[in-house]
């Protein structure tokens, strides 16, 4: 098996401590005993992968931690990542019956983390899932190595199929490795999970290989050749580059795309934030909150988010905003940036803002804020153009890959897709669920197919 990279030391990510540290067994059992073990439980329905939460928590309470992990992995092979990164406040825990009683909901994420981590320390993931089926000789090409693709690869491998992942970056895992806030999950934890999934069967990873619409060769593989050489294809392309505002002064050092900056914080030991005292984050989504929170925790004196509407209109989660604010992030509402200012040497020194009404700039009330760093978190472009090179695959008007939601099959009968490139950008857990749906249908198709190709 391809040895996975380990992220080098000296990265800024390593300076963070965990916002929800791992439970000890005693803490986990105590919390598990609080769970009511509901029937037809709302928390299960709120989990996109439908993990049987009451059952796994009950198992923790009886000391059957291994069984708890089995229950989790049965429905979610990336149950360890999800335990750490899921916004449980808006998913399972948000639906917990205790909320209706105005009492603290069960810490489902932390219990799931305990069960999965404590068990994986003792035994391999493969021992917690049904035994791998004999090799079928069928091969599936998987484009991208984000969570959607890793989940698909694991599930296919268990069924005896060969999964070959093509990832354009050197580091696999997509945003789960390179985008998650460090206080939730480290890049190395995400990589360790990938390693565990790779133990499930015949999975090959090709890093530094981009799948392209045109000709292959030199780190490139053509879509057409994959269709020819593989029995099926899964597209887990994720989203593309950070979007730009298109204002003066945006180009050049000091103005970062938020996702790009987070990737550097997590993976690049050469990144330093020396000299940055004030940072501005443009945007109101979760990426904006994350990057602002991370910059603040890295010790930058003043970090402000600038959003063109009011807090209530933000797409970012209220609980994440509250937590960032608690650590000192400021929120500036109803402002739109009109220009970034640079000194003679080209260094960013500030930004100019106009007041907004209904999110649109209006005359009057212009102001300037000084800063040494800017992170743009106004969305990501799509990376789905390559999908259309698989004949029959269509994109919707947002650029997302079009699939049948019940099967996640695209317009090409040999091509399935899931994750951010289909849903436009949700969570890791959605990527896993979409991969599950796709694999279920793919298995049916691969079974009925008589000959290779």
């Amino acid at each position, binding site marked *: 098996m391809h040895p996975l990279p380990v992220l080098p030391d000296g990265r800024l990510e390593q300076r963070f401590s965990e916002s929800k540290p791992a439970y000890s067994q005693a803490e986990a059992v105590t919390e598990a005993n609080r769970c009511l073990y509901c029937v037809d439980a709302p928390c299960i329905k709120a989990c996109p992968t439908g993990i049987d939460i009451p059952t796994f928590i009950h198992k923790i309470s009886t000391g*059957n931690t291994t069984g708890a992990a089995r229950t989790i992995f049965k429905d979610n092979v990336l149950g360890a990542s999800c335990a750490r990164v899921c916004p449980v406040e808006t998913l399972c825990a948000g639906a917990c019956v205790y909320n209706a009683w105005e009492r603290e909901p069960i810490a489902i994420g932390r219990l799931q983390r305990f069960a999965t981590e404590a068990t994986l320390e003792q035994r391999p993931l493969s021992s917690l899932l049904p035994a791998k089926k004999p090799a079928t000789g069928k091969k599936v090409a998987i484009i991208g190595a984000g969570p959607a693709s890793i989940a698909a690869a694991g599930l296919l491998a268990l069924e005896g199929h060969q999964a070959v992942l093509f990832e354009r970056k050197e580091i696999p895992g997509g945003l789960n490795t390179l985008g998650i806030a460090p206080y939730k999950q480290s890049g190395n934890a995400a990589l360790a999970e990938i390693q565990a999934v790779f133990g499930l069967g015949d999975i090959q990873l090709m890093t530094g290989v981009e799948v392209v619409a045109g000709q292959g060769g030199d780190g490139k593989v053509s879509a057409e050749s994959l269709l020819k050489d593989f029995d099926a294809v899964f597209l887990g392309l994720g989203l593309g580059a950070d979007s730009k505002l298109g204002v003066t002064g945006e180009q050049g050092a000091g103005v970062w795309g938020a996702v790009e900056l987070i990737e550097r914080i997590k993976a690049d030991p050469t990144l330093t934030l020396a000299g940055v005292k004030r940072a501005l984050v443009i945007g109101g989504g979760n990426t904006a909150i994350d990057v602002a929170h991370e910059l603040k925790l890295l010790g930058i004196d003043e970090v402000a988010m600038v959003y063109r509407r009011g807090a209530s209109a933000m797409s970012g989660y209220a609980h994440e905003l509250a937590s960032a604010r608690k650590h000192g992030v400021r929120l500036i509402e109803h402002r739109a940036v009109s220009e970034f200012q640079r000194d003679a040497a080209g260094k960013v020194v500030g930004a100019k803002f106009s007041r907004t009404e209904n999110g649109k700039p209006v005359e009057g009330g212009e102001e300037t804020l000084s800063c040494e760093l800017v992170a743009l978190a106004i969305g990501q472009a799509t990376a789905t153009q390559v999908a259309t090179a698989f004949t029959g695959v269509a994109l919707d008007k947002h650029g997302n890959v079009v699939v049948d939601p019940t099967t996640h099959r695209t317009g090409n009968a040999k091509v399935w897709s899931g994750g951010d490139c289909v849903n436009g950008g949700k969570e890791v857990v959605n990527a896993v669920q979409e991969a599950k749906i796709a694999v279920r249908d793919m298995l049916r198709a691969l079974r009925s197919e008589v000959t290779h190709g």
Partner: protein
Amino acid sequence: MADLSIDFCGIKSPNPFWLASAPPTNSGPQIMRAFDAGWGGAVWKTLGDPITNVTSRFWSHDYGNTRMMGLNNIELITDRPLEVNLKEMYEVKKRYPKNVVIASLMVESKANWKEIIKRAEDTGCDGLELNFGCPHGMCERGMGSAVGQEPKVLEEITRWAMEYARTPVIIKLTPNTGDINEPGEAAARGGAPALSLINTVKSLLGVDLDRMVPNPRVGNKSTNGGYCGPAVKPIALHMMSQLAKNPATRHMAISGIGGISNWRDAAEFISLGATSVQVCTAVMHYGYRIVEDMIEGLSDFLDSKNMKSVNELRGQALGAYAEWGELDLNYNLKARINPETCIGCNLCQTACMDGAHQCIFIPGHTKAEYEKAGHTHIPDSIPAVPVKAAGAIGRHLPVVDDHECVGCNLCHLVCPVPGTITMTEVPGTIGHAETWNDRVAQGRDINPGSMQSTLEKRGLVGK
């Protein structure tokens, strides 16, 4: 994966988990759902002449936030016609030939025992359980625990059953007796190959203080009932292991019952001699679904102990269940507090102060203050180490004075953070192993300060 299948005096069961005779085994459809969930066997709700039940029937003993730590009921045996039960029993056995179905029976006369045993066995059931345990309603009619409390009667009915039965006979015992060995030995004399215990403990659950009527209330009256659930597990473990050790009964297969809620409880019963276990209250609380964890947890546990089958676990802890006189008086423990996990609640301190040996200190006081608080021995140094837990500002780790600590476990038991107080083995004061029985054998079974030693000292009796 360890083999969970058992052979219970000839009855083969896919696993040791059976449902006890009670509401969860009231009907065929229920039992079939239970088998689908994974239960290995079921003891049918006791058959006999159908009775009339009252409303209400149950009351619960809650403790703190724990609901139904104990459950009390005043329900009687089945209220369904015998034909209906037998027809369903036949149906269940036909559709689930691999699962165990036991007919629980309770009737009065010899002729009725003969009749009901034949009819029950005609359904194809795997065995019979004679209910000599019900402590309410039926005993006043000369059945249930009225039999279980009369070894002679129990022995006689057992003989009748052994005469008529073609399938194994299990005698279900009541705990409402002075010495469980008596009914157990009577069952053995009657020739029964198996025992099950315990049935419910005679109880009065509580009082509705506004109405001045005990609970559960039937109009403006109540009655004593049968107590079961987690609270009775220690009673059941004791009685069962008595019989598992008793030379007159230890050849019998035992089905352990009483407060079993999870795989761990089951493993404990099996380690003390049970071949199968039966569950009632935990299923009444959480449903048949709990068996998934029981099967998985027991299987993983056996694997972790390198045991190939559940039979290897049976009786493993029995040898260590000794008489008091056989315990080592030299064995010594001291309480140790883990500074990493203590949250500074001082519950250990108050428990030790008022309920043990006044040897846990809250740092930061003067000798005079400690004396006033009731400490009798004050160590030279009581270090003030801050509690590490976040938010525990100004609190200090309690300090155990080894000089006075008798290693009783109390602080370890009251500490809310599991694993924080550990009991650590230290060298004993005698210097070698010695039991009370040793002392008796050597004529040294008199402690300083005893009545005998005082009389001897004063020359009032000879040594």
